[in-house]
């Protein structure tokens, strides 16, 4: 009982980290809180479902195309809408929220709800780990999650584009004076965030089904993780997703599954009271929060 809870909590934490990391990347670099994040996540899943079932493309090709499509969608969203309201927090929030709402409710209106809307698992196999029955997909999630976080770390620390990203995040004007185009980097940041949402969707959706309400819950989970961890801090996101992941899974097995949401809410409120900038949010602490 205890050990398999730990195993599932670990998997749950990686899922949360995967969901939050794209949101966090976009916010950390361009300062755009992408409230359309959940909608992009669901869009990626629906696109690969449509390619798979309506055009009958092979699974991995359709997943690849949908990730590219969502990345492009993020870039277009920034170029044509967000660029015009850049720097006005209220307008950015309302614009992204409006986009997300329109996308999600359009899918709901078109009737994309039901159990048939799901993606196949990559490899259909299961194992016993520490007495817990774990299927291959969940193991792949952990592996992919670890690789993705590692890849992101290498990207932001050891490539010139990644260093430009961090430059913009730290001080936009100084970065501009060194010849880094902040609009272009912000476009890339939003589109990479969208791409990460698509990758997360491709890996995680096979465990459940695709539905518009999934979009809202992904957005809520990503926000919860980012608020606790401290926005814009990758380390914070990982720690926070482990905190929420373990807390959720343990309340689920030892109290009741209804209480998982309450644990997250309580965690958010407690963290905000004790440390308003989040656990690891020392960066830009003074500027963005008081």
């Amino acid at each position, binding site marked *: 009982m205890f050990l398999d809870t730990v195993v599932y909590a670990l998997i749950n934490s990686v899922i949360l980290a995967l969901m939050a990391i794209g949101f966090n990347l976009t916010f950390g670099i361009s300062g755009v*809180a992408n*409230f359309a994040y959940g909608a992009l996540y669901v869009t990626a899943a629906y696109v690969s479902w449509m390619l798979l079932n309506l055009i009958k493309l092979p699974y991995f090709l359709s997943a690849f195309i949908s990730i590219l499509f969502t990345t492009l969608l993020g870039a277009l969203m920034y170029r044509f*809408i967000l660029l*015009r*309201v850049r720097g006005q*927090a*209220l*307008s*950015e*929030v*309302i*614009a992204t*929220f*409006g*986009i*997300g*709402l*329109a*996308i999600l*409710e*359009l899918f*709901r*209106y078109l009737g994309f709800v039901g159990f048939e809307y799901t993606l196949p698992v990559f490899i259909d196999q299961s194992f016993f780990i520490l007495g817990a029955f774990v299927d291959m997909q969940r193991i792949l999630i952990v592996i992919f999650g670890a690789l993705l976080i590692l890849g992101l770390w290498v990207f932001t620390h050891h490539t010139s584009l990644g260093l430009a990203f961090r430059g913009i995040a730290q001080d936009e004007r100084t970065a501009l004076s060194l010849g880094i185009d902040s609009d272009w980097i912000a476009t890339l940041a939003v589109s990479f965030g969208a791409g990460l949402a698509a990758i997360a969707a491709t890996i995680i959706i096979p465990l459940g089904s695709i539905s518009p309400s999934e979009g*809202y819950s992904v*957005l*809520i989970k990503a*926000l*919860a993780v*980012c*608020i606790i961890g401290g*926005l814009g801090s990758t380390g914070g996101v990982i720690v926070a997703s482990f905190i929420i992941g373990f807390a959720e899974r343990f309340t689920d097995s030892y109290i*009741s599954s*209804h*209480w998982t*949401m*309450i644990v*997250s*809410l309580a965690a*958010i*409120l407690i963290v*905000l*009271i004790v440390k*308003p900038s989040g656990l690891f949010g020392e960066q830009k602490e003074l500027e*963005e*929060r*008081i």
Partner: protein
Amino acid sequence: MEKRKERIDRGIKVRSGDIFALCSWREMLFLAAPRLIPILGFLILPLLLGAYWQKVLLSVAVFALLAISWDILAQSGMISLGQALFFGMGAYASGVFNHYWGWHPLVALPFATVMGGVICTALLLPVLRLRGIYFAMVRLIIPLMLVRIIEATKIFGGTEGLSGIVPLPSKWLELYLVMGALMAALFGFRRMPDSDYGLVLKGINDNDRSVMNAGINIYWFKAQALFISSSIGAFSGAFMTHVYMFVGMPVFALDYSILPIAAAVVGGPGNLAGATLGAFILVPLSEILRGIGGLRIVLYGLFLVIFIVALPEGIFHYIQRKYHQFERWVEVEG
């Protein structure tokens, strides 16, 4: 030959700017019409409309109140994506007073208004230390999580809600109560941004650190703004509880968060009259579009994006400008 657009105040606006407005009826009417027309409209509309559109008018007024409450918060630098929290708190407070304790609706309503305001303010006190996007994020999450909490703990009727709540004594009382509340909120808080108190709130929106520098406790002022705003929201929730004779989890639904924002943005953010105008446009529009069902929310989303990007000042400011000024093309001098 290049030309540019020039905007000049209308003569009548200049003439009616000070005491000389009393010179002629035209000038006085110019000043009074924008105030009198909505008041007369609020008073006469309930008499003219049929039973169905009277119900629509009720929800217009309720959403206008929510939009006003959103706008007061937004003017104080707090972006709220969860007006449903205020609405739901008021609705549940009134429902509990009436259902468990048997209070008369006319007693439950004011108590629920204050109670809802107090609970919301207390719940959001830790969040007041955040600003901008951070505040918006937490505000988006809280109502959605409260729904799950009611579902989990099964308090106040759980998923079924509380039904059999006593309605207000008469239909006319209902209509004029909400119209009166709308007018009170609209005209009562209209002058607030220009008062000393409103200037502090505006200062918090513009630059909170310089307000702190002036030795003003911004959290105390933010808490007060939050209380004002959440009381208005709670009133609309409590009122709707007695109209529907039911309170349940739908009161925390996304509709009550989105429509007020959409109304304020379409009407004109930063102005209470704009928020009201937005509600008077959007709610009847959505009633006409009832046939297309879920597509309505898609339209709200698109409205939000289009207005924020293309007409960020909103309809009200546009009309106001046309009313006060005229435009003409003039040649650009070398």
